[in-house]
C-alpha cells in the first residue's frame, strides 16, 4: 500500500513537473472535471485549435515507473474503506461506477478483513492438510505451484453486499451499495487434485479452511463443493495474489459467499461434520422474522445492478446514453437481463457482452434516449437455472427485515429532470 501510494505520488510529481500548472489544476479537479464539461482554467489551452502541450515535448522516461500506476487524472477511482470500531476490521468497496467490462483491477478488488492484512512471507507460508485423510501433507508455496494449475474468471461477492438494503442513504453510490463485489481471473490448483493426493477417508464430508490472519478465520466447506470447482489460488489477473486478497494463497469457492473463500490459507482439516465456527454460527447466518436463522446459505443468488447511470452520475444533456451494468449468479451463467426505465412497469431485454461465463460477472448494455423525463432505472437478472432476480418486497415478504446477508433484490436508481441520479432506497 505504502509503495503504491509512494509510486503514485512520485509519478504525480513527475507529471506536475512536466506539465506545470495545467496538469496540477486538472489533476486537482480529477473526476469532477471528467463528470462535468471540461473547463480550461489555465493557459495555454490544449484543445483545438491549440496544439496540445504534450505534443511539444518529450513525455516521461521509459520505465520511469517500474510498476505502473493509473493516470493521475484517475486518482479518484479508488476503494472506499468503512470500518466499525477497529481499523483492522471492516470493508473497502470496489468503485463499480468507474469500471468497465467485467475484470476488477487488482488494486481495486473489494476487501473484507476481520483482523487486518497480514504480511505473510511466502517462503515461510505452509498449507497443512490433515484430519480424515490417508496421507497428511505439508506444502510450501514452491510445492503448490508445481501442481497442475487452472485459470478461471469468477466473481467474489461478500454475503453482506448491499447490506444497506434495510436502511440505506439516497446519496450512496453503486460503490457503497454493491461494491463488495469484484471479478478476477484466478489461477491455482484445483482442490480436488490435492484431496486426491492426500486420499480422503470414507467418512469425510466437511473441510475446515483456516486463514493465517490474526482472526484465524475459519469456515466449514462441504466436501461436495471442495471436489466440484474449488481452487487453491495463488494468482489473480496474471500476477501473484495481492496481500488484500490472501497472498500468497487463498481458497476460491466459485459462487459461494465471499468469507468462505478463506484468504492466507494455512490449513485444511477434513472432518465428518461442520466445525461450527464463530463465523458460521454467530456471524454470516441469516435471521428470519420468526427468530430462526438460516445457516450454511453459501450460494450468492442471481443479482444485477446498473453501474451507469447510477447514484452520483449527472446526465448533463438530453439525448443518447448507453445504460450499462453487471449481472452475476453463483448458480452458473446469466441467461438474460431486463432493464426498466419506469420503475419496473415495462422491461426491455439488454444486450449481453460476451464472454458469458459461469459464476462470473456479465456486462450488459442497453441504448437509451433520455428526453429529460424523471426515470426509475432497474435491472433484473435471470440465470441459467431460470431463477429471476426478485424485487426487494418479494424478498422481505419471505425473509423479513432482519436477514441482513444475501440481499439480491432489484436496485432502483432515481433520475430526476435535472439529470441528477440518486439511490431510490
Amino acid at each position, binding site marked *: 500500500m505504502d509503495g503504491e501510494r509512494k509510486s503514485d505520488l512520485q509519478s504525480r510529481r513527475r507529471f506536475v513537473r512536466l506539465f506545470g500548472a495545467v496538469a496540477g489544476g486538472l489533476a486537482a479537479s480529477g473526476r469532477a472535471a471528467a463528470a462535468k464539461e471540461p473547463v480550461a482554467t489555465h493557459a495555454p489551452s490544449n484543445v483545438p485549435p491549440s496544439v496540445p502541450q504534450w505534443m511539444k515535448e518529450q513525455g516521461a522516461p521509459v520505465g520511469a515507473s517500474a510498476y505502473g500506476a493509473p493516470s493521475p487524472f484517475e486518482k479518484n477511482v479508488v476503494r472506499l474503506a468503512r470500518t466499525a470500531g*477497529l481499523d483492522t476490521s471492516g470493508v473497502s468497496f470496489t468503485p463499480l461506477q468507474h469500471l468497465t467490462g467485467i475484470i476488477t483491477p487488482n488494486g481495486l478488488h473489494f476487501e473484507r478483513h476481520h483482523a487486518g492484512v497480514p504480511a505473510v512471507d511466502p517462503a515461510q507460508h505452509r498449507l497443512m492438510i490433515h484430519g480424515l485423510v490417508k496421507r497428511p501433507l505439508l506444502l510450501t508455496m514452491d510445492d503448490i505451484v508445481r501442481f497442475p494449475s487452472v485459470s478461471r474468471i469468477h466473481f467474489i461477492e461478500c454475503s453482506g453486499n448491499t447490506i444497506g438494503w434495510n436502511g440505506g442513504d439516497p446519496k450512496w453510490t453503486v460503490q457503497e451499495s454493491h461494491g463488495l463485489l469484484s471479478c478476477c481471473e484466478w489461477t491455482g490448483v484445483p482442490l480436488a487434485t490435492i484431496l486426491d493426493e492426500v486420499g480422503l477417508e470414507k467418512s469425510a464430508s466437511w473441510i475446515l479452511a483456516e486463514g493465517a490472519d490474526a482472526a*484465524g478465520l475459519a469456515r466449514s466447506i462441504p466436501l461436495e463443493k471442495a471436489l466440484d470447482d474449488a481452487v487453491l489460488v495463488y494468482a489473480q489477473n496474471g500476477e501473484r495474489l495481492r496481500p488484500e486478497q490472501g497472498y500468497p494463497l487463498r481458497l476460491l469457492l466459485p459462487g459461494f459467499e465471499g468469507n468462505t473463500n478463506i484468504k492466507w490459507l494455512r490449513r485444511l482439516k477434513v472432518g465428518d461434520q461442520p*466445525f*461450527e465456527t464463530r463465523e458460521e454460527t454467530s456471524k454470516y*447466518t441469516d435471521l428470519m422474522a420468526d427468530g*430462526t436463522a438460516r445457516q*450454511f446459505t453459501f450460494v450468492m443468488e442471481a443479482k444485477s445492478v446498473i453501474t451507469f447511470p447510477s447514484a452520483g452520475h449527472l446526465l448533463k444533456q438530453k439525448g443518447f446514453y448507453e445504460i450499462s451494468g453487471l449481472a452475476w449468479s453463483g448458480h452458473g451463467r446469466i441467461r438474460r437481463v431486463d432493464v426498466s426505465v419506469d420503475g419496473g412497469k415495462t422491461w426491455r431485454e439488454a444486450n449481453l457482452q460476451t464472454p458469458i461465463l459461469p459464476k462470473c460477472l456479465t456486462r450488459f448494455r442497453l441504448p437509451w434516449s433520455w428526453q429529460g423525463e424523471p426515470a426509475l432505472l432497474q435491472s433484473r437478472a435471470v440465470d441459467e437455472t431460470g431463477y429471476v432476480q426478485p424485487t426487494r418486497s418479494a424478498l422481505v415478504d419471505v425473509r423479513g427485515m432482519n436477514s441482513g446477508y444475501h440481499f439480491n433484490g432489484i436496485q432502483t436508481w432515481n433520475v430526476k429532470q435535472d439529470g441528477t441520479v440518486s439511490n431510490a432506497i
Partner: protein
Amino acid sequence: MRFDFAALIVMTVGCWFGAYHADAADQPRRYGLGRAPTAAEIAAWDIDIRADGKGLPPGKGSVDEGAAIFGRSCVGCHGEGGQGGPMDRLVGGAGSLATAHPIRTVGSYWPYATTLYDYIRRAMPYDAPQSLSPNEVYAVVAYLLHLNGIVPAHAVLDAKALPQIVMPNRNGFITRDPRPDVTEK
C-alpha cells in the same frame, strides 16, 4: 520415491503398441510433492474445537478467574459486563430474535458453547491472539456464560463440562439452505 504400477502399466502397454499418449504417461497417480507433517507440527496447528468438544485441551477455568481476565483484556472493546463497546455486545438479548430489533449475543444467539472456546483461543484478545493459556480461555468462557445466566457463579469449566452446556438458541438454526425461496414470474 513411490513405485507407481499404473504408470508402469500405461507405459508398458503403450510401448507394446508402439506409441502411447504422452500426457497419460507424464501424469502420475500421485505427484509426490510436499512432505508429511510430524505429529508435533499437526498438534501445534490443530487448534479448532468441534461442537461436541473434540479438540478441547486439558485445563480448567472459573467464572471469577474469567472476570479478572475480562477486566484486563476484553473490557476495552466489549464494555463492562460484556454489554458492548466499540465491538460486539456479548450479553443479553434473550427473546429479541423475532422482534424488529434483534440483539445477537453469546447468550441469545450462539448455538454452541464450544465455539466460544474455539474463537477466543484463535482470535482473542484482539491485540494478542493465541496468547491466552488453556486455563485462561476456559475461565473467560465461563465468565461470559455466567454473564448470560447459562452457568452459575461458582462454575468451573473444563473439557468435560463445556460440551455438556446446552445453549439457549441451540435449536434456532436451519442448516439446510431453503433457497430459492422467492419465485418471480
